[in-house]
């Protein structure tokens, strides 16, 4: 197992939104596990930081929450994407792709910039 990276500023929200979009309504623990799995366990996620981030997204109206029952019959709070959240996700995803594309051009040694 190699070095684990911390979550970059601002990317956590995007990861959360994408996770919920992919899996549908999900509780905080599920989201945290899923993010770790998706990153191929490369990200060291402090689960505690997830909750303020979820609250922020909820306050901004990107996600909504609701109490429900987990797969193991446990009471848990489920988060789902709102319409505005979906829009935000699409926008952020596009921006991110663009950013990475630009960075990739800079970092690729073989590319001729001229």
């Amino acid at each position: 197992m190699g070095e684990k990276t911390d979550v970059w500023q601002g990317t956590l929200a995007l990861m959360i939104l994408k996770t919920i979009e992919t899996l549908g309504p999900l509780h905080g623990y599920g989201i945290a596990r899923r993010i770790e799995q998706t990153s191929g366990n490369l990200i060291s996620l402090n689960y505690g930081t997830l909750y303020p981030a979820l609250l922020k997204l909820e306050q901004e109206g990107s996600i909504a929450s609701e109490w429900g029952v987990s797969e193991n019959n446990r009471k848990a709070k489920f988060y789902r994407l709102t319409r505005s959240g979906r829009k935000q996700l699409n926008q952020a995803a596009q921006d991110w792709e663009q950013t990475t594309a630009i960075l990739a051009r800079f970092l690729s040694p073989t590319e001729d910039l001229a």
Partner: protein
Amino acid sequence: MKRVRAWMLRLAGVFSNQQRQREMAEEIESHVEMHTEDNLRSGMNREQARRDAILKLGGVESTKQAYRERNTLPFVETFVQDLRFAIRQHTKNPGFTFTAVLMLALGMGVSVAIFGFVDAALLKPLPYRDPGRLVNVTERVALIPRARLSYLDYLDWKKLNTVFSSMDVFTEDGIALSTSTGTELVAGTRVSDGFFRTLGVTPALGRDFYPGEDSPSAAPVVMLSYSTWQKRFAGRRDVIGQAVTLSEVAATIIGVLPQDFQFAPTGQAEFWTTLRASGSCEGRRSCHNLDGIARLKDAVTVQAALADATTIARQLELQYPDTNQGQGASVLALSEMIVGGVRPILLVLLGGAGLLLLIACLNVASLLLVRSESRKREMAVRGALGASRGRLILQFITEGLVLIAGGSLLGLAFAEWAMQLLARLIPADMLAEMPYLQGFGINLHVLAFAGAIALLAAALFSITPALRLVMTEMRDGLAEGGRGSAGTLWRRFGANLVVVELAIAVVLLAGAGLLGKSFYRMLHIDLGFQPDHLATLQIAAPDSSYSKDDQAVALARQVVTRVSTLPGVTSVALGSVLPVSFNGNTTWIRFPDRPYHGEHNEVNERDVSSEYFTTLKARLLRGRYFTDPEDGSKPGVVVINQMLAKQYFPGQDPIGKKIVHYDLDPKSMREIIGVVDDIKEGPLDSEIWPAVYYPLNQAPNPYFTLVVRTSQAPQSLLPTLVSTIHQIDPNVGTSDEATMTQRINDSQTAYLHRSSAWLVGGFASLALLLGAVGLYGVIAYSVSQRTREIGVRMALGAQRGSVYRLILTEAGWLTAGGIAIGLGCSVATATLMGKLLFGVHAWDVSTLAAVVAVLAASALLASYVPAHRAASVNPLEALRAE
């Protein structure tokens, strides 16, 4: 948008936090459980599984903390916490809180209420278009700074001036109006045609006067005041075009003035008619009956206008030396003319209220300081537990704010009540002369003022205890363990606050004493007659039946005869102008046997019946009074007052000397037959002017005042007087029935002096009370801090007497300091009040001595209680208490 939404939710979170907290706890718990279960499935034992779950979460408490901070606004939450704590603190100490809030409310309420008056009278602009450009324009003579204009002078001024875009005149007019209860005299105003255009007032109904409608040949027209329209014409819109008979002249109603229209100089006028210059007065340049208003042209200052008017007056002096010699000009801002009279009193009252507020604030500040002393330990402990200094100061500020919020709300309520009360205490007649006070109350200005006071108080209250924190080392609070002598800061600073309080109390007491003494002096000046048991009534007979001299004389004799037979009447007289009303209605006299250079010897002219002086109980100094048979058929005679004798016949006997009108009209030649001691013709605080008293029978007039001396209460005679006059002739108008004492007591001068004396007196009593409470607080605190010291002293053999001395000396020094500073300040303040003082000096020794005595006695009383407590200390207990 999203951000705003998030902020609003967070702000809401401050208040619904507990519910969220519970949900949060549940959510975290369920998270940990799920994680633990997963860990169990992957083979950990129970303890390990849970530990790993919590570790991965990064700690339950810190997660909750992060979540909480996100859920609310931390600084708002801190404030709300402080607020809760402050309120809890205050409710734990109801005595302190009650005292502090009450003192603040009192100071605030009084200041705000007085400011309400100041705002209505001095700050709020007059309700005219661009009121700052309006001026009052009159002539000026040596004796009278604002003398009236003659009609011909007005026409010249209007034509010749280069500074006014328009100039108009007005004059009061008594109007005889036939009503169901007989002929009533009502107030009217005659104005030149452009009067309302100059003010910038448009009628609410109908039209304004047309140019030229003030000429004698124009058809008579009238505008109604709004209240007259409502009261006498039931507010009907069809009054426009109708005719109304005013003093036997049918005038067409052309307009109704707006409801909010006001014009203080003729405050009660019901009917506004045009000038229609006529009669003997307006044809003569020497007869001054008009008051002027004008609108300044753009960029013309009042000074420039005055210079221009003075130049014109100078020209007219040269052109018409007979009539205009010595007639200068006066131009002043209209607002100055209207509220100039009440300004000094209002400012004194505002000053007094402000001082009271200051005492209240200082008292509360010193209470807060005492409390912060006693909370040294609490602060030290909280500091030791990690509270930052800023956080602790914030706590103090919040506590101060809570007090101020309570005090301000209560104070505003109190102010509203006080304003209504004070407004109700103003007599209706007086209120009519001060129309600018109409509809005053709590408005935006007043609220802003209250807000400013609250801010200042907040600053004061935050700084005082915070200072303590900044200036002392917190750990001292712990080390000292709460015992020991009073803090040095307290000694240096807190105790001195009370000196300032006492000094202010001295200033207010001295002010109240001086105003009270002025008022007393004023009511007890020698009027030159005896005002008790006199009933008075204004009478106006219609010109159609009484304009001829013999008709007027016959009416006068009939009135005297009929009224004399009424029960209780001992003596009846008639006069043109009542005493204690105004100096004015003057005439210019000269002495036929002396050289004359055109100077105007201005003297009050009063036309009185033969019984006038005996009815008033005036004092005859030389010669005799005239008799009833001395009418126009007999040689002209006159009684002069002592001032005239002194001024124009120094060292001579004036009896038998002749005086004549300045134009040497042979009919005006009179022989002086008597000298009467000076009668106060003007207001109570006015000077005595030289006066001539002509026999009414030799200068008959259908308008006069009835004066009746009775053996019973004069008040009860008034209705009978009115009905008796109407029995003689129902067309004779009457008005203003009142007793002489009523007139004097209700006169504006007496009223203003009385109310300022009472109000400042009230402020002073409150100040004394607050000052004494403050002193008591300081001494009591000092005693409580020195209990151990006193115990030691007594254990070492100090007598109770010396303990008393110890405490009383401390109080004595503070009091002496307060009195010394206060006396200095009060002489200075009283000098500023100069105009309001009557017959007393700013340094009136007896008043100041009384103030010192009162304050010293109160201070002794306030400090005796704690001194007694100190002297009763049981040394054993005092030492054991350690």
